[in-house]
């Protein structure tokens, strides 16, 4: 009788654990689906390469799920961006080393003349070609200006403005104090104002 009760209790506990794990998995899926596109664009602005940005985002997803999946969901956003920013920093370090080595071996690449079917497809939102061009130019100016910011300013600006993290969340994501976030952010805004003043009115 006692053994039967024990088996029933263990079975219930394992079912509850399984249900909880499934619920957590679904929560993580929703969270990642919500942030992935913005995260991709943020990484892309930082590294200026979509494929590399996709890899960085996927790595960040894996690390978040594996290491912090059990944490409270409110903590996920700063942690996810912290992992992503670390990945971006590592990518820049590796790139710097690779460039130093490869500068001796690389030849000038011929200009890419391939026709990109995806890039030339009609705009999915249905904007006119003029609007698209204007937006595309504005986005390009902004991307270059943000990319040229010093790294920490870039991180603070993108996390605060694009991802909408608050100062505390940005501090966690950047691994620094809230005061440093404010300083980096303020400097970034001033630098962007000077750079984009002529293009954006």
């Amino acid at each position, binding site marked *: 009788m006692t053994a039967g009760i024990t088996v029933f209790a263990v079975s219930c506990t394992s079912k509850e654990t399984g249900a909880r794990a499934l619920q957590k998995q679904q929560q993580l899926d929703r969270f990642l689906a919500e942030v*992935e596109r913005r995260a991709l*664009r943020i990484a892309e602005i930082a590294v200026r390469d979509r494929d590399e940005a996709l890899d960085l*985002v*996927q790595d960040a997803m894996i690390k978040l799920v594996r290491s912090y999946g059990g944490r409270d969901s409110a903590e996920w956003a700063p942690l996810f961006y912290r992992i992503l920013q670390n990945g971006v920093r590592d990518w820049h370090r590796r790139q710097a080393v690779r460039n130093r080595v490869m500068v001796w071996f690389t030849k000038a690449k011929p200009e890419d003349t391939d026709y990109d079917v995806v890039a030339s497809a009609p705009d999915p939102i249905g904007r006119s070609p003029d609007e698209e061009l204007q937006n595309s130019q504005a986005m390009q100016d*902004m991307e270059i200006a943000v990319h040229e910011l010093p790294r920490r300013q870039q991180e603070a600006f993108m996390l605060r403005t694009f991802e909408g993290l608050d100062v505390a969340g940005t501090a966690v994501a950047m691994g620094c104090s809230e005061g440093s976030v404010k300083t980096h952010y303020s400097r970034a805004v001033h630098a*962007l*104002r000077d750079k984009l003043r002529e293009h954006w009115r």
Partner: protein
Amino acid sequence: MNKTDETLLQQTKEAFDQSVDGLDAATLSRLNRGRQAALTEAAQPHRQWLRWIPATGVAAAVFLTVLTIQGPGDIEVISAPAADLELLLGEESIEMLEDLEFYSWLETQEDES
């Protein structure tokens, strides 16, 4: 923060949001696949030792390179007669190892005689 800064930030955010909304289907599909792969991969047990495989491979490659460059001259090579190798590699050698004490005693007897 003055009004110019606020306008600038608003415009910047709008441009960014538009670029996010305008991501093409191929990229969205890759993101989705990446997310599913991350969730699946992370659900599997993490095997720490797997991360040492590349490092071990590199270490072995470096060792072999050094060995090739320096040559066997710097390393003491112990030569074993072919008969010994045959003995060691043969199936009967395992049985012989079990009676090692007996063979040791036998050798001392032969020396004495």
